[in-house]
C-alpha cells in the first residue's frame, strides 16, 4: 500500500471530468460493475428452467423462421438469416443498452441515495448485460455461419472495428440518456418511439443497397441524400457487421447488389468516422453525466 492518503475535497462546484483519473476510479470499482451485471443476468434467468438458453433460443428461432420465410417470400436477399442476424444482433445490443441504460439510474434510486459510488457504473452495467447477450447470440450466429455459409476472410477484419464503434456509441448514448432521464422522465417514453423509427431507418431487414440506391437518386441542399442517410451512425455500424459477416456485396444471380457497392476500405473509413464521432460523443455524454451525477441523489 502506498503511504499517500487519498484526499477528496467536495464543494458546490461540480468537479471537472478528468477522463484518465475518472477511468481509474471506475476501474477501482469494477467489482461493483461485474457484480451488477452478474446480478442482472441471475435475476433474469432465475426460476426459469432453461436459464441462459433462452437468450440463445432467440437467434435460433430467428434463423429457423427466416430460413423458411425468406424462401417463401423470395426476398431479394439470398441467405437472408445471415444478413438479418448480423445486423439485428448489433441492433439488439444497441437498443437494449439504451432502453435499460436510460432507466438504470432511476431504477437504482435507492442505491444512488444511500451509497457513494461512481454512478457511471449503472448505465455501464446495462450495456454489460446487453453485451453478454450479444456475445452468446453471436456465438450461435457464428456456428450457423460456419456450418451453412462460411467466413469471408479479409472482410471479417472489419468485425472488431464495427464492434468497438457499436460499443462506444452504445455507452455514450446510455450515459447521456440515463442522466437526462433523471431530470425529464419522458426520455424513456420518447426513446421507445424513437427506437422504432431508428430501427427502420437503419438497413437491418431490408437490403442496404436499396436504401443507398434510393437515397442517391436525390439530393437535399445540393448534397446527396445518401450523406444524410449516413448521418445515422447505426447505418455505418450495421453495414460494418454486414460486410464483415455477410460479406458478399453482389450475390451471383441477383439483379442488384445487397450491400453498399463500395470498397472494403470505404466501409472501414465509414466505421472509423463513426468511431471517432462516438468517442467525441462519449466524452460529451460522460462530461454531462459526471456533471449531473452529483445531484442525482437529490433529484430522485
Amino acid at each position, binding site marked *: 500500500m502506498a503511504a499517500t*492518503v*487519498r*484526499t*477528496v*475535497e*467536495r*464543494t*458546490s462546484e*461540480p468537479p471537472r471530468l478528468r477522463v484518465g483519473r475518472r477511468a481509474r476510479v471506475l476501474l477501482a*470499482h469494477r*467489482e*461493483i460493475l*461485474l*457484480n*451488477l451485471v*452478474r*446480478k442482472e443476468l*441471475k*435475476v433474469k434467468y*432465475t*426460476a426459469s428452467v432453461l436459464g441462459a438458453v433462452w437468450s440463445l433460443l432467440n437467434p435460433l428461432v430467428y434463423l429457423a423462421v427466416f430460413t423458411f420465410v425468406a424462401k417463401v417470400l423470395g426476398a431479394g436477399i439470398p441467405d437472408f438469416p445471415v444478413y438479418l442476424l448480423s445486423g439485428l444482433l448489433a441492433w439488439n445490443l444497441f437498443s437494449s443498452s439504451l432502453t435499460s441504460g436510460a432507466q438504470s439510474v432511476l431504477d437504482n434510486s*435507492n*442505491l*444512488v*441515495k*444511500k*451509497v*457513494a*459510488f461512481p454512478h457511471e457504473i449503472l448505465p455501464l452495467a446495462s450495456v454489460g448485460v446487453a453485451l453478454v447477450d450479444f456475445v452468446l447470440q453471436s456465438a450461435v450466429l457464428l456456428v450457423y455461419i460456419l456450418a451453412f455459409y462460411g467466413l469471408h476472410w479479409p472482410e471479417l477484419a472489419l468485425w472488431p472495428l464495427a464492434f468497438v464503434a457499436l460499443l462506444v456509441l452504445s455507452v455514450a448514448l446510455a450515459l447521456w440518456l440515463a442522466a437526462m432521464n433523471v*431530470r*425529464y*422522465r*419522458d426520455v424513456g417514453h420518447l426513446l421507445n418511439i424513437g427506437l422504432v423509427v431508428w430501427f427502420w431507418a437503419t438497413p437491418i431487414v431490408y437490403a442496404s443497397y436499396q436504401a443507398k440506391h434510393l437515397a442517391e437518386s436525390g439530393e437535399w441542399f445540393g448534397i446527396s441524400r445518401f450523406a444524410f442517410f449516413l448521418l445515422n451512425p447505426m447505418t455505418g455500424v450495421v453495414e460494418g457487421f454486414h460486410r464483415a459477416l455477410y460479406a458478399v456485396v453482389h450475390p451471383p444471380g441477383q439483379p442488384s447488389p445487397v450491400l453498399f457497392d463500395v470498397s472494403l476500405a470505404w466501409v472501414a473509413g465509414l466505421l472509423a468516422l463513426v468511431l471517432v464521432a462516438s468517442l467525441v460523443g462519449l466524452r460529451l455524454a460522460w462530461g454531462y453525466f459526471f456533471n449531473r451525477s*452529483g*445531484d442525482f*441523489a*437529490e433529484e430522485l
Partner: protein
Amino acid sequence: MTESPAIEVHDLSKRFRVFRERPTSLKQRLLTSRSRAEDLWALHEVTVDIAHGSTFGLIGHNGSGKTTLLKCIAGILRPTSGSVTQRGRLAALLELGAGFHPELTGRENVYLNASFLGLSRRQTDAAYEDIVAFAEIEDFMDSQVKFYSSGMLVRLGFAVAVHVDPEVLLVDEVLAVGDEAYQAKCIDRIRTFQREGRTIVLVTHALDTVIEICDRAMMLHHGRVHTVGQPRDVVREMRYVLLGQVDEGFVPEEGTREAEIAEVQIVRADGRADGPVRRNESLTIVVDVRANQPVDDLDADFQILDGATNYPVLDARTSTAGIPIDRFEGKKRVRFRVPSFPYDPGRYWVTIGLSSRRTGALYHVQTQRYQFEVIDAPRIQERVEVPVQIEIEDL
C-alpha cells in the same frame, strides 16, 4: 500518521429545493417558465473538524440535518456552498444491505453488498467465513434472501458492514435496529474499530451510546451547529432541547457568583456517585459551595424534575427547613439526604441553586445540570403459601 483532521467541514450549507410542482417532463418544462420552488436549508454554515482516529457523535432531532451532513461528507450529496475535505478511504453505512436483491442468494448478496462498501472480491473471500459466522445464518447462505426473515436480512447486512476496511467510517442509525444483544455486538464492533485507529462518525438517537463511545460530539439544530464539544455536555444540551427547554429565556447557568457551586455529587445508597439509583433507596445530593467573598445569608436548594414530563417531583431548601448557614468565606458542604426515592424508574434532572436568604438574589443556579437514572430494584420471587385446589371428575 497524518496530523491533519480526517474530515474538515468548512462553512457547509445545503439547500434542498422543495418543488410544489416539479417539472419532471419536457412539456412541463416548456409550459412553466419558472418552477415554483421553496428553499429548505438542511444545513446552514456548518463548520467542524473531525480529528484523525477519533469517534465523533452527531446528534439532533429528526430533520436537524444529521443525515444530510453525513451524505455531504460521503459525497452522495453536493454542498450548496462551503466545502468538505476528507482524507483517507471512506465507507458510509447509511443503510444495511445496500443493493440486496431478493432473487439472489445470501452468498451472492454478500458479494454484491461488499463491493458497494468498497471490498474487493479477494477481501470478501477472506472475510466470508467471518461474515457468515457473525450473521449466524450458516444454513441459509445458499437460499434466496426473499425467503429470509427481516431479522436475518438485518443481521446479514450488518455482518457485511462491520467487515469493511475503511480509514473513515460513517455510520447512520445502523445501531438502532435489532435487539439488545445485537446492539451490544454493534458497540463491541465499534470499539474494535476505535482500537484499530479508524475515524468514526456516528449519527444516532441513542444519546447514552454517544456518551459511552464518542470522543467528541456535535448537536445540530435546524441545520445549524448548536453545540460541539464533550459528548456529556452536548448530550445534556440535546436533552434540554428534546424536553422542549430551549425557550428564549432559558439559561442553564446564571447568578452573581458571590457564592459558587463548586461541585455537585449525587451519591447513591452504595456510596457511589455514578450508576443507576434503585427505587426506594436513599439518595444524597452533596453540594460543595465556594464563597468568593464573605456571605452571611446563603440559601441552598435543589429540585428534582421528572425527565419524561419535566415536572418537579421533589425539592428542598435550607431556609425553609430552618437550617441557617452562618456567615462564611471559602468552602462549605451541604448534604441533602433523601432517605428513600419513591418515584418511577426513568431519568431525572437535578437543579441546584444558591441564593440570598434576604433579597432572593441568585448567587449561582445550575438548571437541570445533573441527572440520574432510577431503576427498579431487582426482586427475587419468594416462596409464599398459595392454596391449590384439586378436583377430579368422572367423564
